[in-house]
């Protein structure tokens, strides 16, 4: 590098051509060197650490590993008391469940765009697909013909008894009770799930061959404690700064630290509207970040912080000497 003639001015016009000294510069060379260094770093990091790939949770693995939790979740889906059944838009219209920003609920305003009837989609429709089971067909007919209060009573009694259930060869054995047709329905659903059939039924429930939308099975999985416990073991929960973490000890989306930070502090931590409030807050902060050059007070901050003295230390040393 060689300096050209010229002396750095003390008060330059920021938009004017630089009147001070220049140095030789090869942009293409700089890019090629940077490319080689970055590619080499990525290869070395890959050789040293590879990348994480924890296998996904399937409904089959859940039903086999924790049949009690699977049945508890499925029963709340049948009874429409689960997290998804009472979620509100976009899945259903449960009153009072949508999050608000002050008096405004954008969630409510968007409406029900991905309708999910948990009893039908997660229990009754998959059970209807099981062929040649006269007992199950009769149980389904009995359940569907019963008044809704009786349906709720059967499912409620079954859910209450589940903690006392034993499983013999994958079959649930519960203490005697007034479960009506819910007991054979749930035993059949557990069998379907343990065979892997429920995974397929929920993905291809609309009888298409190709499918890329996993909304229904993922929402079903997310209602179970098994799924959450696995996430907790991988430090992925919201209370564990989960969104920015990755399974194992790998760096995840570290750049989401500020978004995740708000979930750890009040007033967001305990707020029922935390998601909406944090989303809007981050939207405002992002807009402010983009508009820094136009915000009085913020745009002049770097001048007062004087970190630039370190960045351009050679320049200042030269003009001050």
């Amino acid at each position: 590098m060689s300096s050209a003639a010229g002396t750095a001015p003390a008060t330059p016009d920021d938009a004017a051509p630089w009147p001070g000294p220049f140095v030789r510069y090869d942009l293409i060379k700089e890019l090629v060197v940077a490319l080689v260094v970055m590619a080499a770093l990525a290869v070395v990091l890959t050789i040293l650490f590879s990348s994480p790939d924890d296998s996904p949770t399937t409904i089959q693995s859940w039903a086999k590993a924790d049949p009690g939790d699977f049945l508890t979740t499925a029963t709340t889906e049948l009874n429409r008391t689960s997290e998804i059944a009472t979620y509100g838009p976009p899945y259903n219209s449960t009153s009072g469940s949508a999050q608000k920003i002050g008096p405004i609920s954008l969630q409510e305003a968007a409406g029900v765009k991905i309708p999910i009837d948990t009893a039908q989609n997660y229990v009754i429709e998959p059970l209807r697909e099981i062929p040649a089971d006269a007992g199950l067909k009769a149980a389904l007919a009995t359940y569907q013909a019963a008044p809704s209060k009786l349906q709720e009573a059967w499912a409620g009694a079954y859910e209450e008894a589940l903690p006392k259930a034993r499983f013999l060869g994958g079959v649930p054995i519960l203490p005697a009770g007034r479960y009506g047709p819910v007991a054979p329905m749930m035993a059949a659903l557990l069998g379907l799930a343990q065979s892997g059939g429920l995974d397929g039924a929920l993905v291809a429930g609309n009888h298409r061959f190709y499918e890329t939308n996993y909304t229904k099975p993922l929402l079903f999985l997310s209602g179970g404690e098994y799924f959450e416990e696995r996430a907790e073991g991988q430090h992925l929960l919201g209370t564990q700064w989960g969104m920015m973490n990755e399974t194992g000890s790998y760096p995840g989306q570290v750049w989401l630290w500020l978004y995740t930070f708000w979930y750890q502090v009040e007033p967001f931590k305990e707020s029922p509207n935390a998601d909406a409030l944090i989303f809007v807050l981050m939207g405002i902060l992002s807009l402010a970040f983009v508009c820094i050059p136009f915000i009085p007070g913020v745009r002049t901050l770097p001048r007062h912080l004087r970190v630039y003295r370190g960045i351009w230390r050679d320049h200042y040393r030269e003009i001050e000497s």
Partner: protein
Amino acid sequence: MWTTWVRERAVGALPPEKLLPDRQPAYVSSWIYVFGVATIAALVVVVASGMILGLKGPEWWHVTSIGRFFNGIHLWAVELFFFAMVVHLWGKFFMGAWRGGRGRTWVTGAVTFLVAIGAAFTGYLSQQNFDSQWIASEGKDGLNSVGIGSFFNVVDFGQMYTFHVILLPLAVVALVAWHVLLVRRHGVVPPYPAKAPKSAAPSPPQAAPSESGAP
């Protein structure tokens, strides 16, 4: 002809000596300037490794060791990309790099950062492993809470994969290209004055340093 007008405007705004200069102001000799080009270099590695993964399909990296290797390169290049970009952004903030009508340069850089976060987020959703399942089940709540979860459905793998391999990378690359052209057009921001101008001797308006990013 409008095509002539476009050509003349393009060459007028970015003549070859501005687009690919062979000299830079001496103050550019600082390590902080490396991180801008390092960000672009990491982006090239991200896109190249992503194209190989995309060519072989989303299942390939789960079932072959060579696929896993390229997924590793993709992951680590993304981490390097964000590291370099964040250092670059902080550097530009401390330089007040929007001065002298360079506001659009900052804005395109900041928007690139935000869009890149979306590109990375959809990448994590497209992994088809437990991490992507969990991120989808958590991420849906934020998006649903403001009414956009059904339009940008994070539990719909097909939609997220399309965003990740086509739409958002195109947006990031286009924004980076725009950003670089703006840098080339307006040049790198000069250092702050060594001493603040004395109020007793006001500078003429055209010589006063501009803190605003407005052109």
